[in-house]
C-alpha cells in the first residue's frame, strides 16, 4: 500500500461501488412489511383445498394515538400447500408478507384428523416461520377467531403466544406446544404429539378444551383437562403451581416430582411412575368437615382415577404422548423403533402418588 494520496484514492474508489450495493438484496424496510402474527390452517373436507387464514397486526400509527382504528388485518387464501397459499395471498397485499415473526399456528380440527404432516414441512425447510411458534388445534369456526378483535386488547398473535406462555397466561394444563416439538415428534416413532385443543369462545377468542392426542400426524383422541394435569406431572412439564378442584376442598400443588423407572420383560415394556406431590390447602368445604388425611385421601383417589382413564385412553390408541418410548432407545434396536406404538399398547404401566399436605394456609383445618 503506498503512502501517496493516489493509493488512498484508489482504495476509496474501489470501496465506493460496495456502498451502492447497499439495499440491493434482502433489504425491505420494516414499514414495508406486513408481519404475520397468526396463521390458521383449515381444511373443510378431505378433498377440498387448504384454506389458510392470515392475521396481521397493524402498527399503531404514531400520529393518531387513538386506538379506535382496528389494529389487525385478516385475510384468507386457498391453496394446495401453505407455501402456495402464501404465494397467492401476496397477490392481494400492498406490502411484503413477512412470516418470520409468526407467533402461532392454529390447526383446524378436521385438518388435524386428516393429517398435518404435508402442511408443516415448509416451516423447517424454508425457515420462514419461526420454529418457536405455538401450535394449537382449533375446534369450531376459525373465521370468527380470525376476524374478531381480541377482547383483552393485546396485539393479535401476541395474544395466542401469551395464552400459552408461562410468564403470562400459561398454566400447566395448557400444555404449550411449539412447532419444532410437533415436527420432531412427527418423525419420532417413540413419542406422539399432544397438542392443545381450543374451542371457539363465546366472549373470548377461544377457550382451552383439552389436549388433542395424535398418532403419527393424525388427531385421534383427546385428553380432558384433569388428565392433562397428570400428563404434565408425569412428563416433568409441570413447573408452576396449579389448583386442583375437588368436590369438597381445593388443593394447590406447589411442588411435584416424578420418578420414572422402566424395564423390559418378555418383550413387554414395564413402566413404573412414582410421583410425590407437595400441596397446600386453599379452600375447604364448610358443609362437610374433613380432616387433613381425608382431604389427601380424596385427592389421591382423584389422581388415580384420572391417571387410569388417561393411560387407558392413550394405550388403546397406541399413542405414547408421554415419550416413554425414548427411555427404551437403548434397549430396542433402531429397527424396532417403529414397533413401539404396538408395544405401548401392551405396556404395563403402574403409578403411585405420595401426597404431602404442607400447610393448610393461614387457617387451621380443624
Amino acid at each position: 500500500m503506498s503512502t501517496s494520496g493516489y493509493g488512498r484514492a484508489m482504495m476509496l474508489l474501489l470501496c465506493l461501488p460496495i456502498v451502492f450495493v447497499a439495499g440491493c438484496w434482502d433489504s425491505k424496510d420494516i414499514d414495508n412489511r406486513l408481519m404475520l402474527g397468526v396463521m390458521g390452517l383449515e381444511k373443510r373436507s378431505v378433498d377440498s383445498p387448504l384454506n389458510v387464514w392470515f392475521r396481521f397486526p397493524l402498527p399503531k400509527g404514531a400520529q393518531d394515538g387513538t386506538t379506535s382504528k382496528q389494529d389487525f388485518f385478516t385475510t384468507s387464501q386457498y391453496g394446495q400447500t401453505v407455501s402456495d397459499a402464501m404465494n397467492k395471498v401476496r397477490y392481494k397485499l400492498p406490502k411484503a408478507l413477512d412470516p418470520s415473526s409468526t407467533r402461532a399456528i392454529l390447526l383446524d380440527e378436521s385438518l388435524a384428523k386428516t393429517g398435518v404432516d404435508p402442511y408443516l414441512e415448509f416451516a423447517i425447510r424454508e425457515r420462514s416461520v419461526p420454529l418457536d411458534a405455538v401450535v394449537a388445534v382449533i375446534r369450531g369456526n376459525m373465521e370468527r377467531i380470525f376476524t374478531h378483535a381480541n377482547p383483552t386488547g393485546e396485539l393479535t398473535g401476541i395474544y395466542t403466544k401469551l395464552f400459552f406462555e408461562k410468564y403470562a397466561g400459561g398454566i400447566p394444563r395448557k400444555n404449550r406446544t411449539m412447532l419444532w416439538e410437533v415436527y420432531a415428534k412427527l418423525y419420532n416413532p417413540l413419542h406422539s404429539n399432544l397438542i392443545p385443543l381450543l374451542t371457539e369462545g363465546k366472549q373470548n377468542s377461544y377457550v382451552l378444551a383439552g389436549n388433542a392426542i395424535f398418532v403419527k400426524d393424525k388427531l385421534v383422541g383427546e385428553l380432558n383437562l384433569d388428565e392433562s394435569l397428570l400428563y404434565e406431572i408425569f412428563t416433568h412439564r409441570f413447573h408452576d403451581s396449579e389448583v386442583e378442584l375437588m368436590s369438597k376442598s381445593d388443593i394447590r400443588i406447589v411442588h411435584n416430582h416424578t420418578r420414572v423407572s422402566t424395564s423390559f420383560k418378555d418383550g413387554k415394556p414395564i413402566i413404573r411412575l412414582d410421583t410425590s406431590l407437595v400441596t397446600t390447602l386453599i379452600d375447604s368445604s364448610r358443609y362437610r368437615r374433613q380432616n387433613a388425611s381425608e382431604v389427601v385421601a380424596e385427592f389421591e383417589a382423584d389422581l388415580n382415577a384420572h391417571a387410569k382413564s388417561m393411560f387407558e385412553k392413550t394405550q388403546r390408541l397406541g399413542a405414547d404422548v408421554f415419550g416413554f418410548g425414548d427411555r427404551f432407545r437403548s434397549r430396542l434396536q433402531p429397527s424396532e423403533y417403529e414397533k413401539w406404538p404396538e408395544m405401548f399398547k401392551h405396556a404395563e404401566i403402574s403409578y403411585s402418588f405420595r401426597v404431602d399436605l404442607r400447610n393448610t394456609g393461614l387457617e387451621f383445618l380443624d
Partner: protein
Amino acid sequence: MKRLSTLSGYDMLAIQMLYKGAVAGFIYPNFIIRSTEGAYWIPIAVWAAGALLSSWIFSRLLAQLNGEKLIAGIHASIGGIWTCVICLPVIFFLLTALVVMLRAYTEVITMTMLPTTPIAFLNGMLIAPAILALAGMMPIVRAARVFFLLTLLLTLVLLIVGLSDVHWITGAPWIRTNGDFLLDKRFYAASFIWMGFVITSLIGPHTRHSARRNWKMYSAALLCTLPLIMGYIYLPVMTFGRELSKRLTFPFISKMDSISHYWILFENLTAIFVSVTMFYLFIVIALKLHAIGEMVAVIMPRANKRWIHSGAFLVVYASATLLVSWRVVENITILTIGLRLYVMFVFPLFGLLALAYGRRAGKEGAL
C-alpha cells in the same frame, strides 16, 4: 526486534479452539449423526485419538527443527523437487478445505439469513482473511486472541442457552455401538475437524521446546473443545430426537431456531450463531491461506508474496463461487478423505524421513 515469533501456549490453545469452532458448527454434526446408529461420542472419540496420534507424529517431526519453518527444513534436506512432490497434496488439501469451508459458510448464510444475496458477493468476504493472511503470522495470532475471547464467550452462552428443552433420554443409546460408522464414508469425511495441528505445524518456526509445548496445548485444546463438539451434536439430538436430527442439514442451527425464552433479548439466536461462526472462520481461513503462502514461497522462492496470496485468493474465490450445490460441497469433503489421511499421517512420516536423510547427507558431506 527480531524475536523468534513462535506461538505461545495460549495462542496455540486459542487457534486450535477457533479451528474446531469454525468447522464443527455446520457440516460436521450432520456427518456424525448420519454415520452411526449407535452412540455418537464413539466416532468422535475414535477420531480424537486419531488426531492425537497425528499431532504426536507431527510434534516429533517439528522437534527436529531448530527455529526453522517446517517446509523450509524439508526443502533444505531433500531439495526442491521432492519437496514439491510431498507438499503438493498438502497444498491441494488446503485449497479444497478452504473452498469447502467458505462455500459451506456462505451456503449457511443464504439458507438462514440472506436468502437472495448472491453467493458470489458473499464469497467476497474472503478478502478480509486474505489481507490478514498477507499481513503475516503475528497479526493473525493477535486477531485470533481477540476473536477467541469474543467467540468463547458467545459460544458458551449459546451452548448454555441451548440446554433448554433438552431431554437426556433422547440422546440414548449412550453406550451401544456396532461399529457401523467404520464402514460409513461420512465418518471418514468428518476427519476435517481434526486437522488443526497440521495447519499450525505448517506455519511459523518451530523448535524442540515449542513442538512439545504445542502438542501439549493441542491436547488441552482438544479436551476443551470436546464439550463444544458434543454440544453441537448432542444438543439438537436431545431436543429433536435422532430421527429429525438426521434429516436436518444443520441440526445445530435448527436447534438455535427452536429456542425461545422471555428474557432473551434477541429472538433469533441463529443470527448470533452464524455471526460468531464468521469470527471463527476468518481466523482459520487466514491461517490456511497463510500456510499456502508460506509453502508456495518455499517452493518458488522468487515469487512475490503478494502475488502468491492473490493467486490463492482468486483460486479459492472462483472455485467456491463455481460450485453448483450443497451436494457438491458434501461430495468434495467425502472425495478428499484420502488427501486428509495423507496429510495427517503420511506427510509427517515423509517429513521425518526427509529430515533424517538431510542430516545423514549433511554428516557425510562433513566427513
